[in-house]
């Protein structure tokens, strides 16, 4: 039986040498039905071309490192199976809407700043002393924010968001979802400190509801929902007499 093979085309870009990214093709063995796109990249790096650069670590869909465009769709390459593409070739590119550092590596510093700007930590008017034990919280209260806490910062939603692509000032899906995660947490009292960032013109109001962020999210987070809910929430706080109350 002839050995099964597959063609992988990946973006190559080295700022020391290249003016613009190009694509390079590698024809590699498709040796195991369980192989994923990341395995293919690892095969190339280990046995064909050691200079191919990309990020990866856990290969179990939780560290968020290995997001790339696979045939034009943002995906975690650790669970994009080759068998779903074969015998077609696969084109692997760096995530859209981000500056390219090298090959498949994007610059995500912008997100790191945005993450910090939404103050993603518990804010309380008065510190609850450690000696008092834990805050009481029911599973129903956790369910209020659970899905938004499952964001792995993989950046697929930013790659899917044309609004972010057109305007990098937009706070974007993941950062808004994480702000919502803290605003909905029964232990948190910091919504007023986060409002200036999330209710800003470059915050939720920049979103015009494409909805693709929620489609590509590998963790079932619904950032589009977080954004629309935040719009409703901030409007209510603005128009209702009791809306701006302290919580």
């Amino acid at each position, binding site marked *: 039986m002839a050995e099964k093979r597959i063609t992988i085309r990946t973006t*190559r*870009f080295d*700022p020391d040498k*290249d*003016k*613009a*990214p*190009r*694509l*390079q*093709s*590698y*024809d*590699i063995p498709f040796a195991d039905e369980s192989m994923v796109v990341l395995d293919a990249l690892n095969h*190339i790096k280990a*046995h*064909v*071309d050691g200079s191919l650069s990309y990020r990866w670590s856990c290969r179990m869909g939780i560290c968020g490192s290995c997001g790339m465009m696979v045939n*034009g769709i943002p995906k975690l390459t650790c669970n994009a199976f080759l068998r779903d593409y074969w015998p077609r070739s696969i084109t692997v590119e760096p995530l*859209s*809407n981000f*500056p*390219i*550092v090298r090959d498949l590596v994007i*610059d995500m510093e912008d997100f790191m700043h945005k993450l910090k700007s939404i103050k993603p930590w518990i804010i309380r008017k008065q510190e609850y002393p450690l000696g008092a034990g834990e805050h009481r919280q029911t599973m*129903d209260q956790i*369910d209020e924010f659970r899905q938004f806490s499952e964001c792995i910062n993989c950046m697929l939603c930013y790659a899917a968001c*044309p609004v972010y*692509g*057109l305007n990098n000032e937009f706070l974007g899906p993941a950062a808004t979802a994480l702000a919502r995660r803290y605003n909905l947490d029964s232990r948190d009292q910091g919504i007023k400190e986060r409002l200036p960032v999330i209710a800003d013109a470059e915050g939720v109001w920049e979103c*015009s*509801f*494409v*909805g*693709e962020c929620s*489609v590509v999210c590998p963790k079932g987070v*619904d950032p*589009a*929902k977080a954004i*629309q*809910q935040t*719009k*409703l929430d901030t409007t209510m706080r603005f128009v209702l007499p009791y809306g701006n109350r302290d919580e």
Partner: protein
Amino acid sequence: METVTSDVVKEPPGSAEAASAGSAPRVYKPEMPLGWWLRQRHYFLYIVREFTALPLALWLLWLLFEIQRASTGPKGYYPPESAAFVVFSVIVLGFALYHSYTFLSLAGVIINIKLLDKPIPSRVIVLSQFAAWFVASVVIAAVLIGFAR
């Protein structure tokens, strides 16, 4: 054996950012291609929705103009009867329905109401929105037809 081929595929739009002062990292900043909205169904529907705002606004301006004319009494008012305008109105009605559909579907996602401590499923909220829309439409239609008689 592995084979490696290198092919420069069309130069994508974008710009290499030259190093400004010595050690600043150089990155390549891709730009969105003009046809980006044709790549995904969601993008396409989104752009369609954004663009429908224009004809909708035109139609509404026309409506305001009509109302203003009607205020001078029945003599000054005569409805537009050209086939082109009817076709235009039907298309705009389609657009308006698309907007309403998007808005009401979203409501189920956004609205978070609890009944006996259990969140109401978004499907129920969406269905009730559509039901309310239908009832409101019937009531308005009945009132208008009633007045017309």
